[in-house]
């Protein structure tokens, strides 16, 4: 435990000082890692802890991104105020999807497909409705002042992403040491046994998905403020859903640090392969080299390390 605390303190110190010493490019990469770890934690809560695999987490991400953006552009809200509203919207969407699917008794791959269907439906709606500016997407007027949740120096987005990541780790940590988390894991492991032991399985799943919805939606607003532009594909596209699932599965579903480890691994691979592709002529034509490496990595994880990278860090004696 003390060794872990020491490592964490070290990592935290490194994360704090990185932007002060590293080139701007690395600051952006770091921001991406923490941001991915944050939205990955959303998937981890419902998919990793509660065991409800989703293929459509982008529905929450996009709901957040669009809610805060619409509130700003159409209703003139301040972005900071729109942020909690976006989270609320994400929680509500999570609640609705959960109530509809779990009332109908959907489980496993059926539930996963329903979430995918919701994300696609939202994408198509955003693509065709006028209040989302349809396929044009929404452009947030650049006015880089902290009061507007816009920063001239990307360093501040880096620190904000770091803070979000830390908050998400704290939430996951609380889950591993409290009643809610215990119940979510029980639901994941065995619904009948959970029920027999007094757990309202339906209610716990609804809680998990609402919480996950709020977190992913917070990530959506962050994204919109960082890039000042969203469109239906960015917000609700399958890519985002897969990204959230992937970082968690690779890093370790149902563990505190899984999404962060997965985000580090995947972002790292992404950067390395991108550099390789631009430097080594032989790789020039293998365009999405990172996708191939993702695929191989996923196969290795599923086959060799089903509990993800986090397993490498767990003390072995616990299992003996």
């Amino acid at each position, binding site marked *: 435990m003390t060794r872990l605390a020491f490592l964490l303190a070290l990592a935290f110190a490194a994360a704090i000082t990185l932007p002060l010493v590293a080139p701007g490019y690395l600051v952006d990469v770091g921001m991406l890692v923490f941001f991915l770890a944050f939205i990955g934690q959303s998937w981890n809560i419902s998919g990793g802890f509660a065991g409800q695999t989703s293929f459509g987490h982008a529905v929450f991400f996009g709901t957040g991104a669009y809610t805060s953006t619409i509130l700003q552009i159409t209703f003139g809200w301040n972005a900071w105020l729109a942020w909690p509203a976006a989270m609320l919207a994400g929680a509500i969407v999570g609640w609705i999807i959960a109530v509809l699917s779990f009332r109908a008794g959907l489980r496993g791959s059926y539930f996963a497909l329903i979430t995918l269907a919701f994300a696609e439906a939202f994408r198509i709606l955003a693509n065709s409705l006028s209040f989302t500016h349809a396929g044009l997407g929404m452009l947030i007027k650049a006015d880089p002042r902290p009061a507007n949740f816009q920063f001239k120096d990307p360093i501040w987005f880096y620190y904000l992403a770091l803070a979000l990541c830390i908050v998400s780790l704290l939430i996951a940590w609380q889950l591993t040491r409290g*009643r809610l988390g215990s119940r979510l894991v029980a639901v994941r492991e065995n619904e*009948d046994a959970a029920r*027999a032991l007094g757990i309202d399985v339906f209610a716990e799943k609804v809680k998990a998905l609402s919480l996950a919805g709020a977190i992913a939606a917070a990530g959506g607003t962050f994204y919109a403020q960082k890039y000042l532009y969203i469109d239906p594909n960015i917000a609700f596209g399958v890519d985002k859903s897969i990204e959230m699932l992937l970082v968690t599965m690779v890093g370790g579903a149902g563990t505190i640090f899984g999404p962060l480890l997965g985000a580090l691994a995947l972002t790292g691979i992404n950067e390395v392969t991108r550099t390789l592709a631009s430097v080594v002529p032989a790789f020039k034509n293998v365009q999405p080299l990172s996708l191939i490496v993702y695929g191989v990595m996923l196969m290795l994880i599923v086959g060799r390390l089903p509990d993800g990278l986090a397993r490498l860090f767990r003390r072995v004696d616990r299992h003996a």
Partner: protein
Amino acid sequence: MLEVSGISKSFGGLKAVDGVSLDVQAGEIVALIGPNGAGKTTLFAALAGFHRPDAGRIVFDGRDIIGLPPHRICAAGMVRTFQITQPFAKITVRENIMVGAYLRIDDRSKARDRAEAVAAQVGMAAQLDRFGADLTVAGRKRLELARALATGPRLLLLDEVMAGLNPTEITEIVEVIRAIRASGVTILLIEHVMQAVTSLADRAYVLNQGRMIAEGTLAEIAGNPAVVEAYLGHGAAEVLRA
């Protein structure tokens, strides 16, 4: 404490439980016995809210509980174990039992204390850090018992917690169950291990092909020709008497 009257449950054309009545008084250990496929587990599942019976009444502590979901029945104080054990495989024994303890305890360290106390009570103190998936049959049976006990029930429904155990383990678990009753928990148990039934139960009910064919003290039941026939086949009672 528990009054069951006229419970029926069919699966398709099969009447698994057919107009069954029984009652359990506070403080008793009552056994439910009967040949394989008699409908014992189905009856438990109906009591605990896992199956909605087609007919009949279940009154627990003066309250009609038919139609209540399992978690509400558990919260009311009646909890079942599973004949086919259902451990939470990827968490430790301690965490398994804590799931039960959290029913009435919000605080983590208190829930952990309770889980450890219950583990000691059922003889699992040495296995607290093992994973659910790594337990032996005996360990899994004990875990079923421990988790249920951790919810703080007033009536425990134990479904064959001794099946697959060796004689030493059976003797141990019989002592554990006796101690649980002494602590004020009423017990209804399904059991094929007759030695355990005779040493534990105050009364027994016999179920056969969905119907209750006998009830009474164990001596009464052992002398009941219908029971002997249910177990050994038609005509067996006369053969034995001869």
